């Protein structure tokens, strides 16, 4: 065990991957000379050189598509899109090529690419730079969507993702990079198909992922003080969703709150709510509750942004409304 940051864990994961496999290379805007927009790839250029730590022009569609082509050509590209906001420019390549080539070709052309991007709000970057669209991507068959929320997952999910023969998207919440945690250096490649129970509890299942895991955990502590024993589930993967872990938790707690930084309408939390209701309707003591972002383009002003985002008091209120800890 060693203390490290989420940023360093992610960097170590990439370094490790490039050392382990000649076919792996990193490509994206300012991953090299600049040192990485969020300093995640800092130092990799010096170790692996400009061919394998490849700075790209501002051409999201072309370099993501080039990653897809390189994967078809036998490489194992890690393509970094600086932030999810810019991924909209590459969406055609992701949805119409990465996600469909295997199927359209009748199983001949799999696309072993890993696409990483920063997601989320909370840093006063305003409407165009604060999207949380991982839930959108989770709608698309053919894609695997990962949301590492701990230093262990930041360090070890990439290995498994690179072994996946199909496209994997990794969403890294910008607010997590500076987070410190205990890293299990011996862990090795981890399962990327299962959710994790981060805190055991009996009264209510608080289901979340990525940037709002700290919010859910803090809320659980607060609830404990109020005598409410909350279970915290970190989804880890949004596609496919790990129904088993979600449902077995709800079967015990009979109550669920989904915490999600996406806009409420059409969010991944809606899917989770619908699935729980479909599978566990008669076990539920209360309707599944959602704590999401307000439906507004993210405002710049700090107090407005804070008001728009799902925070601890919002989770507490949702639990109270279920008749717990009030």
């Amino acid at each position, binding site marked *: 065990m060693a203390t490290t940051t989420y940023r360093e864990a992610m960097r170590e994961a990439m370094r490790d991957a490039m050392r382990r496999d000649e076919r792996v*290379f990193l490509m994206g805007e300012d991953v090299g000379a600049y040192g990485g927009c969020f300093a995640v790839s800092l130092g990799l250029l010096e170790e692996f050189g400009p*061919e394998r730590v490849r700075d*790209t*022009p501002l*051409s999201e*569609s*072309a*370099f*993501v*598509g*080039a*990653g*897809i*082509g*390189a*994967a*078809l*050509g*036998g*490489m194992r*590209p890690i393509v970094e899109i600086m932030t999810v906001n810019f991924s909209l420019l590459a969406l*055609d*390549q992701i949805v*119409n*090529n990465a996600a469909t*080539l*295997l*199927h*359209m*070709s*009748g*199983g*001949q*052309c*799999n696309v072993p690419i890993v696409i990483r991007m920063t997601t989320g709000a909370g840093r006063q970057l305003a409407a165009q730079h604060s999207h949380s669209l991982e839930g959108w991507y989770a709608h698309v*068959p*053919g894609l*695997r969507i990962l949301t590492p929320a701990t230093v262990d997952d930041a360090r070890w999910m990439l290995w*498994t993702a690179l*072994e*996946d*023969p*199909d496209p994997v998207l990794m969403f890294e919440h910008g607010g997590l990079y500076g987070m410190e945690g205990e890293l299990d250096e011996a*862990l*090795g*490649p*981890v*399962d*990327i*198909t*299962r959710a994790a129970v981060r805190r055991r509890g009996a009264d209510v299942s608080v289901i979340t992922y990525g940037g709002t895991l700290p919010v859910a955990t803090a809320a659980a502590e607060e609830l404990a003080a109020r005598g409410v024993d909350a279970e915290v589930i970190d989804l880890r993967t949004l596609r496919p969703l790990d129904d088993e872990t979600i449902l077995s938790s709800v079967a015990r707690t009979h109550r669920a709150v989904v915490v999600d930084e996406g806009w409420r309408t059409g969010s991944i939390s809606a899917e989770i709510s619908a699935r729980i209701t479909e599978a566990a309707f008669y076990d539920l003591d209360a309707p599944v509750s959602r704590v999401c972002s307000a439906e507004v383009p993210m405002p710049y002003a700090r107090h407005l942004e804070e008001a728009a985002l799902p925070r601890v008091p919002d989770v507490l209120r949702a639990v109270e409304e279920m008749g717990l800890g009030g």
Partner: protein
Amino acid sequence: MTGLDGAHATHLLEQMLRVRRMEERCAELYTQTKIRGFLHLYVGEEAVAAGILENLGPDDAVVATYREHGHALLKGTPMTAILAEMYGVAEGCSGGRGGSMHLFDAANRVYGGNAIVGGGLPVAVGLALADKLAGRDRVTACFFGEGAVAEGEFHESMNLAALWDLPVLFCCENNLYAMGTALARSESQTDVAIKAAAYEIPSWPVDGMDVLAVDHAAARAVDAVRNGGGPHFLELRTYRFRAHSMFDAERYRDKAEVRTWRERDPIDLLADRLRQEGLLDDAGLADIEARVAAEVDGAVAFAEAGTLEPVETLTRFVTSEPHAGREVR
């Protein structure tokens, strides 16, 4: 071009005829509703695929558009598998899941069949990047229409290929129309070759109705690309004799224009030349036509005998099997 290699030219003639007769049969099969969805035919443009693919080897790759039947066929995909694909049967080259617009054949390095205009260009750039990183001397040929030149992906892909010096041969099939939009109504600069030059990519226009000219230009370009010359760009000036797809009333061009171009039918042009030089006679042409007709009939028969994939396996190929999922550690 000096002299004329009769055997080689005759071979090119046969290649063009294979595409022509296959496409004509597809049109019939569409009206018989044996083929469904969108169908885009290559009739009139055969010299382009024939001339360029003649210069690619089995290890070279092809990325094409929804008008790609000829490219797949001439890259080595059996006509049987192509027809079967359009029938939507399991024996198709894409297992019946792709259809006319998505012919794939990994063994022959045919990477589709992309139905998003411009969508194949970045993929071709990436295939070439993989070759460069792996130190292989393979070439990736990327076919697209002149309409794709207006797309941002064209611009981004040209720049990446040139900036990174990648082994891509860009083949712009300039048939003057993007559906109903004439080039002059879609580009401020209608000289496509000049556009490519703006990326410092060597580019030159080629008479796309003269298969020998295409063959000659392709030989030079492929050679340059394969030997580290970086991306090259060919503008193949050609014409689509038939409608854009099977749902096109052709309001945007007049019959006279089509007639004029038909006078430069690439197949007739070469056949006449061979005749003039005494390298082909009616009997010889009849032999070729007979061989081609037999191949087409065989392909149709193969497709007719095809089997439907069971509905139970509908969701196959959404992800690869077996899956790389791991145990929790």
